[in-house]
Structures are given as C-alpha cells and as structure tokens.
C-alpha cells in the first residue's frame, strides 16, 4: 500500500509541475502582456514603461525560474492588474467559491442519490424514465440559460431570493441550484448503475432470504456498496467545482475564483493566472490522489493490479 501511495504521490507532483510550466508558456504565447496591462488607449511610451518596470523584457526561462523560486518561498508575487498581493487576492476569493462548490455538491448529491436509488429499485418504470429525463436535461441545458430562468422566476417574478451578489446565504441559493443541477447527472447515473449491480448480487439475495425488510436491504446493504464509486466521483467533481464556474460566478456576480481567473486571463495578469492554475492543479491532483487512495484502501484489487 505504501509503495502504491508513493508512486501515486510522485505522479501527482509531476502532473502539477508540468501543468504550471505549460500554463506559463501558453499564457506568454497568448499576447503581449505589456500591451494588455497598459490598457485600452495606452500610448507607446506607457507600454515600454510597463515592460521595463515589470521585468517583462527578460528571457522567458529567467522569468519562469524566478517565479518558481519565489513561489517555493510562498511568494506568488503581486498582481499586475489589481496591484496587490496575489496570495491575499486568491485567499480573498476562495471562500466564496468553496462555499458555492460545497453547497452545489450537497444539492447535487441531495437530488441525485435518492433519484438514483429509486430509479434502480424500479428499473424501466416511469420513475426511472423521469430520472433519466432530469439527468439528460441537466446535462443538455446550458447552465447560464438555466441560471437566467431561475433568476427570472425566483428573483424577478416571485422575488423570494436575491437576483445577484454574495452578501448573505440567500444569495447562494440560486447559484448552488444552477451549478448543482449541472453536476448532478453523473452522480445520478452512477448511483443507479451501482445500485442495480448491488441489488443483483449474491449477498443481497442472501439478505432477502434472511427475511430482512426491503428498506433495510436497499439502504443498509446495497447503497453502502453502490456508493464506493460515488465517493471517488465526489472528489473529482469537488475539484472541478473548486476551479470555480466562470459562467455561474459571472451571471450571479459572485466574486469568486472562477471570475478572478477569467478576469486575470483576459487582462493577461500572469501572476494571478499562474497562481490560480497552480493552486487548482494542486487541489485537483490532491483530490484525485485521495480518491485513488480511498479506492485502493476499499478495494484491494486496485492496489495489486
């Protein structure tokens, strides 16, 4: 188990390093930072001045190594656009995104687990079809459109929740529903498949033969086993959600990491973009790693194979 964990860990670190280097290169290739930084209407002298002041006239490799060196000391530099400490900026935006991620994940699990279970217990019935329809709609509907519909109905017409902003819990209701519905379908399908496999297995037949109640069989025996792959998916989806949903954050004016990433990319604010990409690749890699380890711990076949 230890050898497996170390191997996975090394791979995870490698992935994070490659991602940060790739991001650095791609960002530099995407345009002239000095022009973007100087802004619309800047004069050529402004642009030259920016280039010199920010050290953008140095060779690329020097700039990258300089950044890596400082990052290892916990210094992510200063945002070119916001003119403030990058780490503080990211720390400031992360709670909004994390709250949105956790709430939408809870919403997604809250609807997909019961629906997945019911669909598996009554396969090919109208309930199963309805669940399938909900899942397909969740994936097919563009989430900005769904968000606007929610906003119009609950924010503008019924006026029971605020339309946009992030000041109170009520502000998170619509975005969590919009984003949660978008990530729910894979959970629903995975729960249904897992439950159907579990319900058809030998130990369930034994349990039934022992005369246990239907609910006890489904919830205690089958669901526990069906949830193993769902745990792994949860870790991956949480990583995805922590990356911030640019669309949902933009639509609901939530000042989170996704919107910050979008802003910093459009302003070619390299230190911020770089920090976000690095942070997220670490989170993602970390979550995937923990999912791998949990799975390996739960299922010995994985660590041996």
């Amino acid at each position: 188990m230890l050898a497996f964990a170390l191997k996975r860990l090394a791979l995870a670190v490698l992935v994070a390093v490659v991602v940060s280097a790739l991001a650095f290169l791609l960002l530099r290739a995407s345009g002239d930072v000095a022009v973007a930084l100087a802004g619309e209407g800047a004069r050529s002298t402004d642009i030259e001045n920016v280039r010199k002041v920010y050290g953008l006239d140095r060779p690329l490799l020097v700039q990258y190594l300089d950044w890596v060196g400082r990052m290892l000391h916990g210094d992510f530099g200063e945002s070119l656009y916001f003119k403030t400490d990058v780490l503080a900026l990211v720390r400031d935006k992360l709670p909004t995104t994390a709250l949105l991620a956790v709430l939408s994940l809870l919403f997604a699990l809250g609807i997909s687990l019961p629906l997945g279970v019911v669909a598996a217990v009554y396969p090919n019935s109208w309930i199963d079809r309805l669940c399938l329809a909900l899942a397909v709609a969740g994936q097919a509907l563009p989430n900005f459109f769904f968000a606007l519909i929610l906003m119009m109905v609950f924010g503008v017409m019924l006026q029971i929740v605020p339309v946009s902003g992030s000041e109170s819990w009520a502000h998170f209701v619509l975005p969590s529903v919009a984003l949660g519905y978008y990530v729910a379908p894979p959970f629903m399908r995975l729960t249904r498949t897992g439950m159907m496999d579990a319900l058809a297995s030998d130990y369930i037949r034994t349990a039934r033969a022992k005369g246990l109640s239907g609910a006890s069989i489904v919830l205690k025996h089958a669901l526990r086993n069906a949830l193993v792959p769902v745990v792994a998916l949860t870790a991956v989806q949480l990583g995805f959600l922590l990356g911030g949903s640019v669309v949902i954050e933009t639509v609901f004016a939530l000042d989170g990491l996704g919107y910050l990433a979008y802003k910093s990319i459009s302003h070619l604010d390299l230190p911020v973009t770089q920090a976000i990409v690095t942070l997220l690749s670490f989170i993602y890699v970390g979550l995937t790693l923990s999912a791998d380890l949990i799975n390996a711990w739960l299922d010995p076949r994985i660590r041996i194979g």
Partner: protein
Amino acid sequence: MPARLSASAFCIALLAATPALAAKRDNSIRFADDQVLENVDPYYNNVRIGVIMSHHIWDTLIYRDPKTSEYKGQLATAWKWIDDRTLELELRKGVKFHNGAGFDADDVIYTFEFTSKPENKVTTLGNVDWIDHVEKLDPYKVRIVTRRPFPAAIEYLSGPLGIHPHAYYAQVGPKGMNEKPIGSGPYRVVEHAVGKYIRLARNPDYFKDSPKPQPKIDKIEVRFIPDRQTQVAEMLSGGLDLIRNVSLDEAQQLRAVPNLQVVSGEIMRYVFLQMDSREKTLAAPLRDQRVRQAIMYAIDRPTMIKSIVGEGARLINVPCFPSQVGCIDQDAPRYAYDPAKAKQLLKEAGVAGIDLDLYAYRDRDQAEAMINYLRAVGIKANLRWVQYAAHRDAVRAGKAPLAHWTWGSFSINDVSAGVSIFHKFAPDDANRDPEIRDLLERGDTSVDPETRKKSYAKALALIAERAYVLPMYSIPINYVATKDLVFTPYPDEIPRFWEMSYK
C-alpha cells in the same frame, strides 16, 4: 451570442406580463457596472467606473463644465500661463478632506510628484508624465512646470488628476488608498469591498463654492455585476436604480417596462476605419489614394447609424469627437455614399479582386456591415475578430490593412488625445505622412489657441483628403433608470450622482 440574446428577450417578455414592484426609496441610488475596479485610486486603474468614482470621491484643480465645456475653478480658484512651460495656480482656502485634513499646496505637490515617477507604476503614465515638477510659492499658490510646452494641461488637470491628501497618501500609499479612499469630493467612501461593491455617502461638509453642486442623494451603492443580463434582471426586480451600456435591442425592449426609463446619449467616443498605407502594408492597393477614397465612398454611414448604431450617434467628417478642442471639419472633403463612384475609382486605379483583412475588437455588427458594403464594390475583406490588445499589436506590426477602431480619447476634450496618437509617427500611425505630423506637432505644442486651431484644421482636412482613415460616427450609449430618477447623460460617460435626485 444569439442563444444569450434569446434568453434575455425571453426574460423581458416574461416581465412585460408581470407588474414590476417599485424599489424602496431611502434617497439612495444603486448603480451597477460590469468592470471590476481593481484599485479605486484614480491613478491606478484605467476603467470607466474608476473615472466615475474619481470625480465623486476626489476633486481636481480645475473643473470642466460638461454642459458648456467651460473651465471653472475647483481646488484652484485662478490659473495663468507664466510662460509656455509654467502654469501658475491659486489654490482654494478652507477645503477639507474626508479625514478632516485641510487642503493646501503640499497636497498638489505630493500627488503630482508621487504619481509622475515611473517607479510608482501608475497605470497611465501619459496622464502625468508631462509634469516636470511643482513649485510651492506659498501655501495656496503653486507653479506646475511641464517637461515640454503642453497646452492640454488644463484639460488634464480637469480630468484624470484628482488631488490626494498628502500626509495620508504618504502613509498608506495606493494600496491603502484603495482600501480606505480619502478625497475631498462630494461623496465619501463608507465601505469598499474590493471586487464586490463600493458604498458612498454624501459629504455633508462639501465646500459650498465648488462648481459641482451640493449633492442631494444621501447614499450611492456601486455594485460590480459583470453580466449585462443580470444587471437587466436586477433592474427589473427593483434591485438597482441605474445601469449603463445597455445594448440597442435590449433598450428597445425595456422601453415597454412601466417603471423604467431608457435614456440615450452620445458619448465622447468616435469610430473610424484605419487604412494601412505604409510601404510594407499587407494590402499593396491601399498605397493608392484612389483605392482608399473608393473605400470612403463604398460605406453607407447614415444607414449604419440608423439601423445598427442607434439614436444619439452623429456622422463625423474628420477623425475626432466634435466637442474636442481642435476638432474642426470645415476644410475637410465630404464623402457621401456612392458605390458607383467607388467602383469607378477602383477601375481608374487599375486594381481588381482586392482581398484583405479587417481587424476589429468591438461592435462586431458594425464591422460586418462594413465588410458587406466593401464586398458590394468588389473588395473582399475578411474579418479578424480579436481582443483589443491583439488588435493593437496587429496594427503596430503592420498586419492589419484595415482596422476598425472606436476611440474614447481618455475622455480628454482635446484632439491631442486622439488624432495625434494615430498620425504623428507613433506606433499606431499606419500612414506616416510627414506633413500631417508637422501640423499636429505644431497644434500639440503651441499655447496660442488660434495657432492650434489652424494647425489641427489643416491636418484633419489632409487626413480626410488623402483618405488615410474613414471617419464614421460618434456612438451613443443607453442608460436604463428607474422612472422617477432625474438623470442627464453626458458625452464623457460620467453619470453625475451629485446632481441627481428623485421626482
């Protein structure tokens, strides 16, 4: 994005059937902008909302009356040019900053000397680097010495150059100024949640002699809402009282909503089509004046104004905004829409089957309309739709035979902030005509108003005659406000909260 348009149309349609609720009124205005303000310190941002905040929280030495374009004293009471590089200003006595500190010459000196140093990294150094140094004659009299003759100084002093309290600024710097802004303007900052909102309250001690009238509205909240659809939804739900930059089609639909008003106003932003006639241009036919003139005749600007640009736009004959000092079009030739003449000019030039790229970065529908007009006379233009920075790179690298620009001149009411940038051999100059350069140089550096006017009139006429750029039109923007808000739009795109009130 068509899907997005249909979504908003759907939402508005839904609403037209719903009685909108009146917003609660506590003598406040809730306003939204789509640009996050990275730093509210006016020297450290280059977004429009920053300019708007700057004029509310801070004062400038001189004030330009938006109605008459007349310069009035604000923190200065009088000024005169001692020579062509020295401007002497008398300062106002008895003005207090929001933190109680009194205003005097030290504030002017510290603000300008701090911001004009390149190592302090102000965002638009060009706004301040014309200042060489500031001399203190007594606590209420200063001399600004410029690096070169700079007649536009008065305009700059009335625009982007707010005055900071020197002791506080020296202590907290731009970062602290962003977190807790202190100025002397008609509104003070109560709370700045960076990236979320700024809350302002009326400054009850605002000096009575200011050319800005005493504010009537008690509280202003500026929220950052990046998505325009969300801003519209907030307007419909009564969560906001004023938004700007609403698209033409949405504005037309919102006119139907009973508790809202749509106000359109021309802004100090003009559109032009730049034609690269340099030696190494990618489209060799553009070297020929007749081909460029053909392009001038090929595009139907009045129809574009009517059908795409919208109410409030004005046709222009020279590339500058009509109110700008030096923007004189009397000597410039007029190019009416005449496709037959365009074809004839192309025939005379002996070119056929021109195929070139047209770069554009905003108002895609306008760029596409131009392409259609050009196609009708036999010029095939391919749209290169890019980000602003890439657009400017392409023009500078000589990769953009045609470039569709909209230019806001940093809201500076002087042609030196516009036409001089594009025709004085700076990197954005795609024509390099020495005669025009010399005329503009004379206009930019002379302090005699008559000499300036003559030089600019001649330069602008030559630009039109030699068809280096096609001047198109000024553009309007649409504001949507709650019905009972008394609101006047101005060309400099600055909503003046201090003069607003409710009916």
